[in-house]
C-alpha cells in the first residue's frame, strides 16, 4: 500500500523543502521506495537541496502535460537507493498543474510500486499548495515556534480538513503530524520562544519531532545533501527520529532541553 504524504506549512521559509529532502531520504534509507515531488512550479528548489539540479531534464509539468514519461522525469538519487526526485518546472506558470494531471502522476507512481510519495508543497494557500495536499493520506505540518508560522499552520490545517480529497469524499481524515523546526531550547528556557508544549497546545496536532536550530542545515543546503545524511549533526538525528516515529517506532524525544555542558566540554568543546 502506498501512502501519499504532503509536507506543508502555509508560511514560506520555515523548512518545508529541507524537511521533504531529509524525510524522503530517511524513508529511503529504511529500505522503502520513495518518490519526492516538488510542487513549487516556477520556484523549484528541492533539486538544489538534494543536489541533483544539474540532472533535471524533464520535470513534473512535462509529465502532467504528456511531454515526457514518468520514467524519463524521475531523477534517481545518487546516494540512496530507491529514492527518486520529480523536479518542479522552472519556466512554466503555476497554472500548468491540473487536478487530473496530478492525480494521474500519483496513481502511476503507486502502480510503479512506490511505498511513499512525498509532496513538497509551495508556500501559501493558493492552487499549488492545494494541489500538493489534495491527494494526501498524511501531512507533515512544518512549523517554526513563532507567531506567524503557528497562525499560518493553523490556516493550512483548516484547508487539510476541508478541501482535501479525503475531506470532500467524507473519508477518514488526513493524519496530521507536527514537525517543529528551528527549535532553540535555550530561548525556550529563557521564555523568549514558544515551547513544543505551547505549539502542540495551540494547534492540537501530535508532535512527530522537533528539529533543533542548527548550522548544519545551511551547510547541508550549501553542499546539496539532505541534512539527515550528516550523521553527527543533532538536526540529522532529530530527522532520523522523525522518520522512525512516522514508521510507528516509539522513540523518546531529544533536543528539547538545554544541553548542560560539563567543565571539559566548556573548556575544549565548540
Amino acid at each position, binding site marked *: 500500500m502506498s501512502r501519499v504524504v504532503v509536507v506543508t506549512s502555509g508560511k514560506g521559509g520555515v523548512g518545508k523543502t529541507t524537511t521533504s529532502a531529509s524525510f524522503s531520504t530517511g524513508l529511503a534509507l529504511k529500505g522503502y521506495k520513495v518518490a519526492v515531488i516538488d510542487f513549487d512550479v516556477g520556484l523549484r528548489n528541492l533539486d538544489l537541496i538534494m543536489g541533483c539540479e544539474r540532472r533535471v531534464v524533464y520535470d513534473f509539468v512535462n509529465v502532467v502535460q504528456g511531454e515526457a514519461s514518468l520514467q524519463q522525469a524521475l531523477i534517481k538519487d545518487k546516494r540512496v537507493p530507491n529514492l527518486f526526485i520529480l523536479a518542479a518546472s522552472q519556466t512554466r506558470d503555476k497554472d500548468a498543474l491540473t487536478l487530473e494531471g496530478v492525480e494521474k502522476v500519483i496513481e502511476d507512481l503507486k502502480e510503479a510500486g512506490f511505498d511513499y510519495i512525498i509532496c513538497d508543497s509551495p508556500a501559501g494557500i493558493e492552487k499549488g499548495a492545494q494541489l500538493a495536499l489534495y491527494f494526501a493520506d498524511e501531512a507533515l505540518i512544518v512549523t517554526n515556534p513563532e*507567531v506567524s508560522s503557528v*497562525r499560518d499552520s*493553523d490556516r493550512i490545517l483548516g484547508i487539510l480538513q476541508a478541501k482535501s480529497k479525503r475531506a470532500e469524499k467524507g473519508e477518514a481524515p488526513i493524519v496530521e503530524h507536527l514537525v517543529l523546526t528551528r527549535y532553540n531550547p535555550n530561548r525556550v528556557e529563557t*521564555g*523568549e*520562544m*514558544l515551547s513544543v508544549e505551547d505549539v502542540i*497546545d*495551540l494547534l492540537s496536532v501530535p508532535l512527530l519531532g522537533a528539529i533543533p536550530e542548527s548550522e548544519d542545515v545551511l551547510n547541508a543546503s550549501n553542499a546539496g545533501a539532505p541534512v539527515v545524511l550528516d550523521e553527527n549533526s543533532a538536526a540529522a538525528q532529530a530527522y532520523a527520529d522523525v522518520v522512525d516515529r512516522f514508521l510507528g517506532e516509539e522513540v523518546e524525544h531529544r533536543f528539547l532541553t538545554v544541553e548542560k555542558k560539563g567543565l571539559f566540554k566548556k573548556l575544549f568543546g565548540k
Partner: protein
Amino acid sequence: MALLDYLIGQRRKKSATVAKDRLQILLAHERSERNTPDYLPKMREEILAVIAKYVDIDQEKLQISVDEADGFEVLELNLVLPENS
C-alpha cells in the same frame, strides 16, 4: 541597577507567554470564522440594506452567526435599534 532590572523582569511577562496568549485568542477567532458559510457576509449586507430602509441603524450593530445546536443549524440575528427610533 542590575538588581532593579532583575526585579522588574520578574514581573514583566515573558515574550513567549505573550505570544501564546495572543495566538490563543486569534486562532479561536479565526477557527470560528472558518466554519461559517461563504454567503454570510453578503447576506449580512443585504439584510442591513433592508432594515436601513425603515430604521436608521448603526452598521456595526448587526451581528449574524450560524451555530449548530442539537443537530439543527441556527441562524442568529442580533440587532440593537437606536433608542430614539
